[in-house]
């Protein structure tokens, strides 16, 4: 029990009256001091009764909405408090976040009075570093209505929360839990013949070019042998990027479209290094846009790379306030070409042919934009087309039909599909895990199609947090799921 300044003022008055009574030999003043002192004594007993009521009836619960989060990932903590207050006092409850946890906002003080005896707050926190953190029981402070006394103590329970470190590489690309580490686009032709890289030896057959005989192998094996080499080939790469609203889920910088951008950029770089023809198509809510028709020109690679590198997503679209206005590359090329007209400098003469040879086109379709984009790319394809989808699992039927369409026409298809549940900050661990299982089932279904390889594209830290956090759930469920 802490006495406040007001208490000491009253105590000083009682002492003054008693002392003054002694000084002038007046029993009235002495009894006046007695009246003041007994009033303090009564107030003190009253406060004791109030604190006793609070101690016995106050129910404080501090609980996290999730017990396992990733570093830098915001998480919510709920504080509920209720008490049956019969005495006029105020109760303030102040939770304290542990060192290493940042309050997204300053945690407010929860107050209870006899007229308002329950309250709930949800606070948002963020841990910049990984580790185990303990939220202690909240501090409770009781003050009497007259402001004479105060008492502080802790009540209720705290909780522990585990903050998982962010993975060194935030991007997970793989299938069935196996992460791929090879660079994208290092493709093989699957054909044997004359080339640079040695592949295999085979016995000489009539009709083979005699210049292809490997004389060292022939001397070693006593029979003429021919060394096969991998045939070098170019492969047309068609990228179809889903830009519909579901691809913008998640916090800025960790949206699906941000992850897609990283992988698509790797494809653009790989295609450039191998001089593969590269085309780019984007799919919005109701149309398909061929941003770049397939070409193997340097300006093509540079333009597509600059689009992917641009801030805020693929930059094939510029989004502001939900507006789906588009800034297309053909338009930009036309602007550049117009600006070069009438310029007779050596610089303009050098650049002009590049823009004059470009024949971009824009085509809009009425329905099922992803399927339409797929059909469009395959119709215009070269013999050796490698089609790459970047999308999520929101439009599953459409994606599946598009993949079947490509598969039935013998097109090599690589699908990068982002699980929506790993970009949803609202789902509980149990919900996320079930949704992830459903996603994985869908991905496997895609992966089983002929010529189709389906990869998961997700934030590595959230994925690992989900799988680790779901371990007890799986154990409780009676084994692995």
């Amino acid at each position, binding site marked *: 029990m802490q006495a406040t300044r007001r208490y000491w003022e*009253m105590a000083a*008055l009682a*002492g*003054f*009256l*008693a*002392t003054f*009574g*002694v000084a002038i030999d*007046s*029993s*009235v*003043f*002495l*009894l*006046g*001091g*007695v*009246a*003041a*002192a*007994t*009033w*303090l*004594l*009564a*107030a003190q*007993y*009253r406060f*004791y009764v109030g*604190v006793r009521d609070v*101690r016995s009836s106050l129910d404080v619960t501090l609980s996290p*909405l999730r017990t396992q989060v990733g570093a830098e*990932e*915001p*998480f*919510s903590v*709920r504080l509920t408090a*209720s008490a049956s207050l019969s005495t*006029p006092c105020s109760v303030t409850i102040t939770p304290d976040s542990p060192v290493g946890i940042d309050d*997204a*906002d300053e945690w*407010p003080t*929860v107050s209870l009075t*006899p*007229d*308002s*005896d*329950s*309250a*709930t*707050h*949800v606070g*948002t926190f963020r841990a910049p570093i990984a580790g185990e953190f303990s939220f202690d029981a909240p501090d409770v402070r009781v003050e*009497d*209505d*007259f402001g004479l006394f105060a*008492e502080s103590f802790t009540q209720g329970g705290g909780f522990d929360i585990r903050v998982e470190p962010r993975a060194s590489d935030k991007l997970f690309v793989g299938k069935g839990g196996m992460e791929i580490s090879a660079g994208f686009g290092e493709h093989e032709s699957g054909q044997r013949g004359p080339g640079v890289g040695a592949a295999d030896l085979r016995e000489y057959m009539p009709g083979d070019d005699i210049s292809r005989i490997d004389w060292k192998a022939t001397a070693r094996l006593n029979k003429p042998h021919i060394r096969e080499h991998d045939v070098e080939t170019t492969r047309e790469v068609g990228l179809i990027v889903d830009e519909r609203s579901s691809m913008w889920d998640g916090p800025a910088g960790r949206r699906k479209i941000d992850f897609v951008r990283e992988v698509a950029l790797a494809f653009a770089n790989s295609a450039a290094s191998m001089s593969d023809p590269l085309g780019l198509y984007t799919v919005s809510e109701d149309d398909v846009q061929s941003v770049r028709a397939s070409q193997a020109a340097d300006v093509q690679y540079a333009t597509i790379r600059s689009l992917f590198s641009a801030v805020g997503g693929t930059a094939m679209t510029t989004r502001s306030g939900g507006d789906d206005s588009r800034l297309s590359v053909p338009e930009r090329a036309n602007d550049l070409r117009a600006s070069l007209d009438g310029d007779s400098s050596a610089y303009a003469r050098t650049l002009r042919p590049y823009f004059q040879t470009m024949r971009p086109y824009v085509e809009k379709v009425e329905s099922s934009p992803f399927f339409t984009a797929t059909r469009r790319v395959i119709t215009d394809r070269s013999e050796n087309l490698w089609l790459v989808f970047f999308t999520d699992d929101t439009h599953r039927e459409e994606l599946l039909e598009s993949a079947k369409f490509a598969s039935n026409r013998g097109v090599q298809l690589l699908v990068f599909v982002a699980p929506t549940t790993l970009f949803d*900050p*609202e789902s509980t661990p149990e919900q996320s895990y079930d949704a992830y299982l459903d996603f994985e089932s869908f991905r496997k279904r895609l992966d089983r199609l002929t010529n189709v390889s389906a990869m998961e594209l997700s934030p590595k830290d959230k994925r690992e947090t989900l799988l680790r956090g779901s371990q007890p759930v799986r154990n409780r469920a009676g084994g692995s799921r």
Partner: protein
Amino acid sequence: MSDESAAAGHGESDVSSHDESDAASRPASRPPSRSWAVVALAGALLVGVTTWSSVGLLAIPLVGSILAAMWFLPLPYALGTAFVVAAAAVGNDAGSRQVVGVTLGLATLVGAASLREGTFDGRTVAGYLALTAGVSAVVVVALASASFEAVAFGTTLGLGLAAYGLHRYELVALDLLPDS
């Protein structure tokens, strides 16, 4: 920060904040008690009747000024003012019965002020008046057989020990002793 429903809908991304009081579980606000007026009237009558023999009709403005002090001033100043005015009215030659009457009358007015402010309930005020009457009686009895200084010292010491004892009892009874 966000309220519970917002958290359920938006999780950590929502950063707005406000209190959420459970209106359904609130007890109805207690109607303001008028008992303090009755207690204040009793205290004023007690002071007036006790000082009537000393000051006559001046007891009316005396009680009025004490009531005004109790109404407008903070309790410590009101109590100090009331005792100074009462002491000036009855003087040093007042009998013990008159002194105890004035003290109890003023204590009743203090109790009425506490009731009006809602800091005390009726039982606490009754306990306070009983305590004041008891200690005053002990003081009057003690003054008959001991020096004024000794009685004042003993009273102060006794009340101080009572307050400290209650403080220690609270710490032990409510398990509030710090871990050390």
